[in-house]
């Protein structure tokens, strides 16, 4: 299955695949952001690979790490083939200022809340999403908590102890 996924992606989207990575038996492909929708569309239509299950969407922030040169934000799409019982990852790098990418909601309804969570936690905007609003944090909260420059101990919205203190960044 590993070989099948590789040859399918390389034959159809060879130029858009930046690199392939294999860590602890997990196959992942770094792809260019603009081909995400075509690749997912092609995977859904390919009956042989049968990649119909979008297990997860998550995001990473590489601020201050040497990996930042490839793009500060990393989106991880976790795809699973139910009949082949095989999991692989599509990874996309996005720049630090105003990161945005096309939404997957037309292909998978399940992407709706997963993308809303990424937006709320990491501040990545999904273009064309039907309901791009906060999902977990309070409406008054400013910023995106899982970004590395978001303070860990700063209470927000302020209602008890840190009204007059400057934010203190731990880590």
């Amino acid at each position, binding site marked *: 299955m590993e070989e099948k996924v590789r040859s399918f992606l390389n034959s159809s989207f060879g130029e858009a695949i930046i690199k392939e990575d294999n860590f*602890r038996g997990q196959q992942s492909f770094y792809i260019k952001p603009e081909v995400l929708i075509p690749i997912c569309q092609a995977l859904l239509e390919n009956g042989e690979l049968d990649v119909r*299950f979008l297990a997860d969407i998550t995001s990473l922030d590489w601020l201050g790490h040497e*990996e930042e040169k490839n793009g500060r934000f990393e989106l991880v799409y976790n795809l699973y083939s*139910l009949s082949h019982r095989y999991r692989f990852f599509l990874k996309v790098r996005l720049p630090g200022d105003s990161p945005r990418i096309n939404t997957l909601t037309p292909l998978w309804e399940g*992407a709706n*809340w997963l993308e809303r969570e990424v937006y709320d*936690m990491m501040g990545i905007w999904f273009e064309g999403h039907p309901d791009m609003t*906060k999902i977990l944090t309070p409406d008054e909260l400013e910023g995106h908590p*899982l970004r590395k420059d978001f303070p860990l101990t700063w209470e927000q919205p302020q209602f008890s102890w840190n009204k007059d203190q400057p934010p203190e960044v731990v880590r």
Partner: protein
Amino acid sequence: MPEEKTVTLNMGPQHPATHGVLRVVLELDGETVVKARPVIGYLHTGIEKTMESKLYYHALPATDRMDYLAPMSNNLGYCLAVEKLMDIEVPEKVKWARACLAELTRVNSHLVWLGTHAIDLGAMSMLLYAFRERELVLDVYEACGGQRMMTSYIRIGGLAHELPKDFDKKVLKIVKVVRERLNDYEKLLTDNEIFINRTKGVAVISAEDAINYSLSGPMLRGSGVKHDLRKANPYSGYENFDFEIPVGKNGDAYDRYLLRLEEIRQSLRIAQQAIEGMPEGPYRAHVPGVVLPPKEDVLYKMESLIFHFKIITEGFQAPFGAVYQAIESPKGELGFYISSDGSNKPHRVRVRPPAFVNLAALPRLVEGSLFSDVVCAIGSIDIVLGEVDR
């Protein structure tokens, strides 16, 4: 003034049938739900952010507090992910003990679900029976981890300490008692006309839609998709056990009820096999510098004491890379995506929460149905808000 056709009704966050602090904004046309919008986040505590700032060992107790009805499953998922990252192979006995505990957790979680779901639909006595049996499982937790809910018993590289002396007796007692009493539950609910009327044909989702909504666990299997990570991608020695994956047909709340009851039976089967076939061996892997040495060694051996001290204070350096480990928790696919930047703290821990993803399908389940079915739909998804909001 134009005539208002629909009424907006706010359900929750303080509502007994929402199992915690779920809020649903409903748009009603008479008794029919036109639109439903779940609002979550009232229990958000930033667990993922907290785990980033802690050493790998110190982040473990945070996992108990997500799905507090299935603490062992959460521990297991996190530990398996860290073990995959560090490339640690645990002893056979640990695998079997972990599988046994994870299955008891499934029994625990499904029993609470059964009780609360039944009481939502008016079967008051069911709650008391389910909690009576759950107490037996909590006794095993207490004997193992010293606590009834936040156990943190499964640790990176093994278990917190040796299994308690009468572990096998206690587990076999659960197997015997719960197996018998499941028949009583069936008598109370399976042929109960009120229960059937409230659940049959309610909150239906087709197999196609279930996959499209990324549902997992009983929500997916209830619609007839035979997918269980314990069989599909076995972890922690599940390939050694003989068990069936029950599937539903119609994808309604009644099928999911029958399926969860059958899952309890299969879990008991696995727990019994695990007890009967449990191999001898150490309760923790021997990986100096990464896995904590056994407490007996720390007291008498200098190297062990040094390693113990170093692991607790500075932790261990993980290699650069990212791993994803998914397990079949009682609610569905529970995944941990751990990204390491090469330091002694995780760069990012992402929890793929099954209840969160399953709850996203709530509007699809209730739109077009009667208002009173919303309670049944929420119950049949089996959510724990601690995990949804994290």
